[in-house]
C-alpha cells in the first residue's frame, strides 16, 4: 500500500489552509525565514499562526437543530465556503434503523432538511439524500422522518440501487477494493450528517462510521477491525462539511436503541471540516476522550485528522 500517495492527496481547501498557515508563518518569522530564530520567537509565531488559522469546527448548542446549524455556518464563514454554485451535493444522514427521531437512532430530520436547504441557498444544482440502512429501507426512510423532511427541502431522496455500486480501490490498510455507491463518488460535494450514538463494538458511532452507509456488502466484515477500517473510510471519503448531530444522543443499547430512557437531549451540533476532530469532540458527550477510541487514534495516526483537540482551533457557541 502506498501511504505517501494518500497523504499527498490534497484538495483545494486543504491547500489553501496549509498555504495560509505557511504564509502567516513566513510573515511572522520575518523577512528571511531561513535566518536563525530564537525558540521564543518561534513559539510566539506558532501561537499567532494558530490564532489566525480557520476554525476547524464549531460547537453550537441550546437552539433547535435549524438554529444551531445556522449559527455554526455563520461562525464558519457561511455555506458558500463549502458548497459552490452548480454543485451536485450528497447529504448523507444516518437512516440506518426503523426508529423514530425521538429514539435517537437516526439523524434528526429537521437537521437534514436544514443542511439540504443550505446547499440550495449556496446555489447547488441538486442535493441527493440516501443511505444503505440495516432495517428495511422503506421503513427506515419513513419512520426516521428523513425522507419526508429532505424531500420537502427539495432534495432528491432515493433508495440504494444495487446496480449503482462500483468496485473501487479504496487504497486502505484493510479496505482494498470494495463496492462503493457511485452517487457518493460522482458528486461535487458530500456532506456527512451523522448522529452520535453508543455502539457495542466500536463504543461510539459518529462521523467516520457513518460512511458505512455508502459502501456495499459485505460491510459487516468491517466489525472485525474497526480501528483500521474506519480510518480507511476516513481516508477515502473527503466531506466538504461534517455536521455531527447531538440534538439527541443515544447512550446505551446502540446503535439501534429503542428505549427513550437511553436518550439524552443535548440540542447540540458539531459542525466543521475535520472529521476526526469532530468525532473526538463528540466523545465528550459520553464522558470520554477521543484518544479512548481506537479508530480515532488510528485515523489521526494516518493523518485523516486531528484527535488531539488542544491542537485544533474550535469554538463553542451558545445559541439563544
Amino acid at each position: 500500500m502506498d501511504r505517501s500517495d494518500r497523504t499527498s492527496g490534497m484538495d483545494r481547501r486543504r491547500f489553501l489552509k496549509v498555504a495560509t498557515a505557511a504564509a502567516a508563518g513566513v510573515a511572522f518569522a520575518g523577512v528571511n525565514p531561513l535566518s536563525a530564530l530564537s525558540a521564543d520567537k518561534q513559539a510566539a509565531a506558532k501561537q499567532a499562526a494558530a490564532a489566525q488559522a480557520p476554525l476547524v469546527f464549531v460547537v453550537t448548542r441550546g437552539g433547535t437543530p435549524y438554529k444551531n446549524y445556522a449559527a455554526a455556518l455563520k461562525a464558519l464563514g457561511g455555506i458558500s465556503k463549502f458548497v459552490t454554485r452548480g454543485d451536485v451535493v450528497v447529504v448523507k444522514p444516518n437512516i440506518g434503523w426503523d426508529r423514530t427521531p425521538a429514539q435517537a437512532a437516526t439523524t434528526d430530520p429537521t437537521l437534514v432538511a436544514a443542511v439540504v436547504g443550505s446547499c440550495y441557498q449556496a446555489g447547488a444544482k441538486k442535493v441527493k439524500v440516501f443511505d444503505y440502512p440495516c432495517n428495511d429501507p422503506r421503513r427506515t426512510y419513513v419512520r426516521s422522518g428523513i425522507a419526508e423532511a429532505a424531500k420537502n427541502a427539495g432534495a432528491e431522496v432515493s433508495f440504494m440501487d444495487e446496480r449503482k455500486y462500483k468496485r473501487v480501490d479504496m487504497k486502505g490498510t484493510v479496505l482494498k477494493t470494495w463496492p462503493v455507491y457511485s452517487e457518493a463518488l460522482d458528486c461535487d460535494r458530500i456532506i456527512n450528517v451523522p448522529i452520535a450514538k453508543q455502539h457495542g463494538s466500536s463504543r461510539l458511532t459518529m462521523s467516520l462510521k457513518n460512511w458505512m452507509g455508502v459502501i456495499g456488502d459485505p460491510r459487516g466484515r468491517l466489525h472485525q477491525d474497526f480501528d483500521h477500517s474506519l480510518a480507511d473510510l476516513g481516508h477515502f471519503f473527503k466531506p466538504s462539511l461534517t455536521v455531527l448531530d447531538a440534538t439527541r444522543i443515544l447512550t446505551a443499547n446502540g446503535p439501534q436503541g429503542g428505549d427513550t430512557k437511553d436518550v439524552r437531549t443535548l440540542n447540540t451540533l458539531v459542525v466543521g471540516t475535520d472529521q476526526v476532530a469532530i468525532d473526538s469532540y463528540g466523545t465528550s458527550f459520553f464522558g470520554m476522550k477521543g484518544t479512548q477510541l481506537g479508530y480515532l487514534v488510528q485515523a489521526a495516526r494516518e493523518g485523516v485528522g486531528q484527535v488531539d483537540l488542544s491542537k485544533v482551533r474550535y469554538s463553542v457557541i451558545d445559541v439563544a
Partner: protein
Amino acid sequence: MANVRRISQVVFILIFLFLLVQTQYQGRDEIGYPVRLFLDLDPLFVGLLLLSTFSLKPILLLSLITVVVSLVLGRFFCGWFCPFGTLHNAARELVRRPRKLEHGLYARAQVWKYAVLVAVVVSGLFSMSVLGVMDPLSLTVRSISLGIGPSLELIVRNAFDGLYVHAPAWVTAVSEPVYGVLKDYVLAFSQPHFLQGAFLGLIFVGLLALNVTKSRFWCRYVCPLGALLAVLSKPAALRLGTTGQCDRCGKCVRSCPTGASPALGDGWRKAECIYCWNCVEACPTRALSFGFARPQSKDGRIDLSRRNFVWSLGAGLAAVPLMRIAPSLMRPNPRLIRPPGARPEEEFLKRCVKCSECMRVCITNGLQPTLMEAGVEGMWSPMLVPRIGYCEYSCTLCEQVCPTGAIERLDLATKRKTVIGLAFIDKNRCLPHAMSVNCAVCQEQCPTPKKAIVFKETKARDANGSEFTLLLPYVVTELCIGCGICENKCPVVDQPAIYVTNLNESRSPSRALLLAPKSTS
C-alpha cells in the same frame, strides 16, 4: 351480453391483480387497500371457519354476497368474477382448439367436484388444510404470489437491468423512467424469492394447461367452490329457455365451456352453467335466452350418487388422521418458526388456508411456504426462514392480511414482545468464540430496546501474539424474541454462527426453556 361478461371478467381480474400488487408495504404501517378482498368473498372460508372453530370473522361475512348472488342468479361468480376462471378463459383462447360437440354436453365425471367438495367440507371440520390446497382463490393467490409473479418480475428486472448495463444512453433515457414507474407502482421493492416457487408455478400452469383437453377443466371436474355454488344455485331463478325455433344445430353446445348441455343431451343443467352467455350468442336462430322463471327441479340436478357421497365423506374423514400421523405436532421441527400472532400450532393449522398473503406481504421476504416442516397438514403454510429474511421489529403486515385469523392481529406493543423463537450461538463457528476475531454484528442488529445479545469482554492474542480486547457475544434468553435478524446478518454466510429455532415461542407455553425467567423490566 357475452361481451358484458368479458368486460366484467377483465375488470375483476385487474382488480385482483391490483390488490395483489398492493399486498406489500406501501409506506405506512397499515395496509391501505382491502387486499384480501377476493379471499373474503369465499364462502367456503367463512363456512368452515364457523364449523371448525365456532368463530366468525365479521369481514368474512362479505362472502354472504357470493352466497346471495348464487342463490338468486346461480354460478355467476364462476363466469363473471372468479380470477382463476378468467385465466381459464384466457388459457383456452391461447389454445384455440375447435370445440367438440361432446365437450359441451354434461359428462358423468363432472360429478367429481362434488366429491371434492364433500371431502373438503368434512376434513374442514377439523382442519382447513385440504380446503387451502383446493380452494381456487387460495390457489390463485398462492400460485401468482409465490411462483408466477416472482418469475415474471425476474424477467422484467433482468430486461431493464440488461438495458441499463448494455444499451446506449438514448435507450436507457427511455427505459429507466419506465422501469422507475414499474418499480414504484407494480414491482415488489426487491426481487422476491420463494422456496417451491417453481413447483407452485408449475402446478398452476399445469392446471391451466388442462384447458387443452377440455375448456375449464378445473371448473368442470375439480373446483370445490364451484361445486358449493352449484349446490347453492338450486333455488336460483335465472334459467335458460329454449323456443321452438331451435333446429338442434348444436352450436350452443359447442360454445359451452363447462358442459352444461344448453339445448341438447338431457337438457340444460343449472348446476354446471356459469352464465357466460356464449350459447345465447352462438344460436343462429335466436332460440335461446336467459330469463327469470320459477326454478325447475330438473335444472338443478346434481348426480352425486349416495355411494359416491359416502366415499367422499370417508375420504375427507380419513384425510385428517392421515395428515396428523406425522410427529410434527408432538415434536415440532425446530426450524418451524411461525410469524408473531400465529395461534398455537393445532389451532393455527385449523385455520390456515395457505393463501400465502402473509408471505407475499412480508417486508423482508422471510416468510416462506413450508414443505414438510409442519407435516402434510401444514404444507405451504408460512414459516420464517431467517437466512432469507428476518421478522421486522415494528412490522405487523402479515397479521393484517391473514383472511382466517390463523395469524391474529396484535397491537404493535404486543407484537414486539411476542416470542417466535430463540437465538443460539454456534460457538464453533462464531468469529469471536471460535477464532478470537471481533465481530459483533448480531449484537448491533438486535432490535430489542434492551439488547438480547450482550458482550463478555475478554483478552485475546492475535496472529502476531499481541493482546487485544475480544468481545464475546451471548444471548439473553429472557430478552430474545427470535426475530432472526442476527441470523440474517451474521457474516458467517454459509451456515450462520447464530441461528434461531422455535424453542421458547410464546404461543406454546409447554416449550418454554427456562424454569424461572428473570424479570427484565
